[in-house]
């Protein structure tokens, strides 16, 4: 229906003919702020964004001040009080080593909230670089990288994770490496698509027509125009990173004991469910669910605001 909506834009149409004075436009730099403010206003009007931000904010606060909030030391074991059901003493009960589940849930976001953004940031940086280069130069580099990306994508993330853990041994660094390696091609693909559509624009040709070098065209001209998709991709991948790290921890390949990581807690206790010991599993599970849903609501809000 776009073709008959008539031009509906935010732009201020200024004088077209030299005969007319009094432009309706202020000086430039403010405009950047206006656009930013407009995005912000859209974001703040989005319920999903606010809900997501609140949830994520809650877990960030817990990760930073967890030890102050937690009723108990999350690492202190107490074999005598193992596997106690929720009670007034332990609202969420205790685990097999007698540790307080509530305390462990409250601080459980700490590792994942460090590891996931770091890994995603790394992947975003590498993916953006790769996407810019392959999208701009095309040809052989693009084709061969494209094949490699397909090959990596042919294997589910979790399995690449398993494979890498076996090859490199489980550690936090390995987790970051795995996430970065797996997400880089995915991000590269998104950025490449954005670059391909940018290259169609003639401002790129115009840059070449004043003898700009490729790095300037890539980073000076094209990159600012693809930052929107990059930001959206970052938030989306952040959600996936949390998803993947939690899963790897659950499989015993991610964050290592005795960290109070949620996935790890479920890994250590899921065998006990059928015995009726549900609390050391359910509470961390709900915590993970709330965190990933929060991050994804956030990214959904951001992408909707930017895609307008």
């Amino acid at each position, binding site marked *: 229906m776009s073709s*008959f909506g*008539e031009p509906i834009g935010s732009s201020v149409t200024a004088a077209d003919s*030299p005969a007319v004075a009094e432009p309706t*436009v202020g000086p430039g*730099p403010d405009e950047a702020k206006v656009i930013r403010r407009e995005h912000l206003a859209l974001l703040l009007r989005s319920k999903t964004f606010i809900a997501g931000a609140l949830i994520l904010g809650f877990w960030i606060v817990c990760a930073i001040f967890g030890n102050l909030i937690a009723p108990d030391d999350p690492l202190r074991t107490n074999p005598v009080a193992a596997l106690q059901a929720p009670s007034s003493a332990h609202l969420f009960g205790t685990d097999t080593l007698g540790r307080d589940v509530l305390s462990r849930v409250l601080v459980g976001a700490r590792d994942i909230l460090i590891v996931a953004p770091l890994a995603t940031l790394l992947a975003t940086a590498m993916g953006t670089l790769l996407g810019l280069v392959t999208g701009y130069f095309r040809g052989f580099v693009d084709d061969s990288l494209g094949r490699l990306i397909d090959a990596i994508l042919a294997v589910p993330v979790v399995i690449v994770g398993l494979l890498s853990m076996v090859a490199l041994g489980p550690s936090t660094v390995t987790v970051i490496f795995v996430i970065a390696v797996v997400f880089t091609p995915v991000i590269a693909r998104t950025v490449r698509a954005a670059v391909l559509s940018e290259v169609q624009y*003639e401002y790129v040709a115009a840059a070449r027509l004043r003898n*700009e070098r490729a790095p300037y065209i890539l980073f000076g001209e094209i990159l600012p125009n693809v930052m929107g998709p990059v930001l959206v991709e970052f938030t989306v991948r952040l959600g996936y990173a949390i998803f993947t790290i939690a899963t790897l921890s659950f499989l015993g390949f991610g964050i290592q004991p005795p960290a109070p990581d949620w996935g790890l807690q479920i890994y250590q206790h899921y065998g006990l469910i059928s015995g009726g010991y549900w609390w050391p599993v359910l509470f961390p599970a709900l915590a993970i669910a709330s965190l990933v849903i929060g991050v994804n609501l956030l990214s959904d809000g951001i992408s909707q605001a930017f895609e307008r």
Partner: protein
Amino acid sequence: MSATAPEPTAVQTAPALELRDLEVAYRVRGVWREVLRGVTLSIARNEAYGLVGESGCGKSTAAFAALRYLPRNGRVMSGSILVDGEDLLSMNESQVRQLRVSKVSMVYQNPTAALNPSIRIGDQVAEVYALADGGSDGSDERAREMLSKVQIADPASVMRRYPHQLSGGMNQRVVIAMALATNPSLLILDEPTTGLDATVEGEVLDLIKTLREEFETSLLFITHNLGVMAKMCERMGVLYAGRLVEEGPVADVFDRPSHPYTVGLLRCIPRGGVRKDKETLDTIPGFLPQLGADLPACVFADRCGLAEDICRQQEPPFHRVSEGHCSRCHFYDRAHTLPRTTGAPPVLGESARQEPVLQARGVQKTFHQEGHAIHALNDVEFALKEGETLGLVGESGSGKTTLARLLIGLSPPDEGSVVELDGAQLAPTVSKRERDQVRALQIVFQNPDSALNRRFSIHRILGRALTMLTGQRGEEREEHLRQLAHSVRFDVRLIGARPAQLSGGLKQRVAIARAFAGDPRIVVCDEPTSALDVSVQAAILNLLVELQAKQKVAYLFISHDLGVVRYLSDRIAVLYLGRLMELGPADQVFESPQHPYTEALASAVPTAEGTERERIRLVGEIPSAASPPSGCVFHTRCPRYIGDVCKTEEPELKEVEPGHFWRCHYSAEQLRELQKTPPKPRV
């Protein structure tokens, strides 16, 4: 053109369409913005009514309102719409549907998108019959009949095809067939030929004319092209900012425009073979109002050279100029005295230098696509002198944009092509050219939205170009930048703005300024005004002429608009399927003798004078560049086809008169003789 205004007393039945004081608004960001501000018009049975106006004036909104098909954010605020005397706004959904089935149809721009890509043509047409009759008995047969009525040669095979397998012109025929299938009383055409090639456009317009008579259908014809309007319509209305400012028989309005806006519009377009050295084009000062902007009592007052206080305070009534001709202007009787906004044309002196700045010889370009070699350009040669404009015309697939990209070094020509700047061969790609060569040869692209980086301020866009092309920095560069902005009449106070804040015309000025940053010798203009409204186009064309007079720059001016090309060009080159068909002084190319293709092309373009010469029909479609015809590539469609020689032997580009070249087996004398009469249609 027969201007038969309907006799109100003679019409027994209700008009085909009647809009009464129609107000439509769109809700944008929570605010209702007026698009139509009380439009009243009436289209009699069998009448062709044209609605003309620039972008944002609400002409498409009026069309869709007549079908009660507004976008989600649109609403009819007041007024009424009557189709065949029935009130459209009080109907329920199923009545509206019934009306769309039987009484009103619509054809719009971009026919290929208008057809469903995954349903066969035949089924899409038959669907209309099935819908109208309730059953599908014989609907296939009727679809076939209808397709042959829109002059599709082999309807049976077309029916089995999908839209992507047909050309744009063919698809538009199919859309027209669907629209006329149920013999509607009103056919709405919204820019039906915009985007089609000139020769195809001519065919489609002729077809609409013929069918309209056969089906006795009323037309609401919406266009921005005054030439098309003159050819197709009997009565016309001029819309400005959602208000009908003038209405009357087409010939009357063209002869005696009685609203300053209409006067301005008609002066904007290069007509009657007027050229840049004789006359500047008049412009309409100011800018098109934003959607729903607050406007004075007379919506045009802010841009009107005749406006007085009364125009801002009192809405002008519809003054009767003559029988059926009305104008919404307080000073309708002296609208034609509207002062011109532009002065005398600049003096374009002849250049003393005789040797060309740019010389192209034997230029070839081959693309390889899935194993096929596509010869986009074949043996093209021309020279460009200092301060001269060479117009380049051709339809799609002619290779004009390929040639532009190749000259400026964005895509390399085939081995062996010669492109010389001041006698020195240019490197195939821009990155291998000297800085002086790069700055000497620049381009203005068609669409400034695409050509300007939307993240940068105008200051940065122009500043960077200056730095890279001239090496200037600091205060020296700032000074130059101000001069540059001034030279394209760009208000320096807007220099901090970003492209999105500027109107289309201002953006194109920036793009022109950028091309002129390094004092170029040659600027390639690739359809620089085709994305702009006509009133803006005039200002840009004037600017190009002014810059040329001042800087002795040479233009290679590419356009599909023959009027514009003729206005601006000293010489004209005509391309067809990658071959130069004709090259010569502008006036000679437009007059007999001319190459048969140029002859057909020129005859296909409707002109605003309405003094149209008989259109020469071209048979078939433009062949694909992947498999061009043998011999003369134009032989499959040539109206002056000689015989086998055309099929087997490709004619040389020969000089038929001094400075006038063409690629045809005929000589100048032969064609001059032949072109005294129009060719017989080929079968």
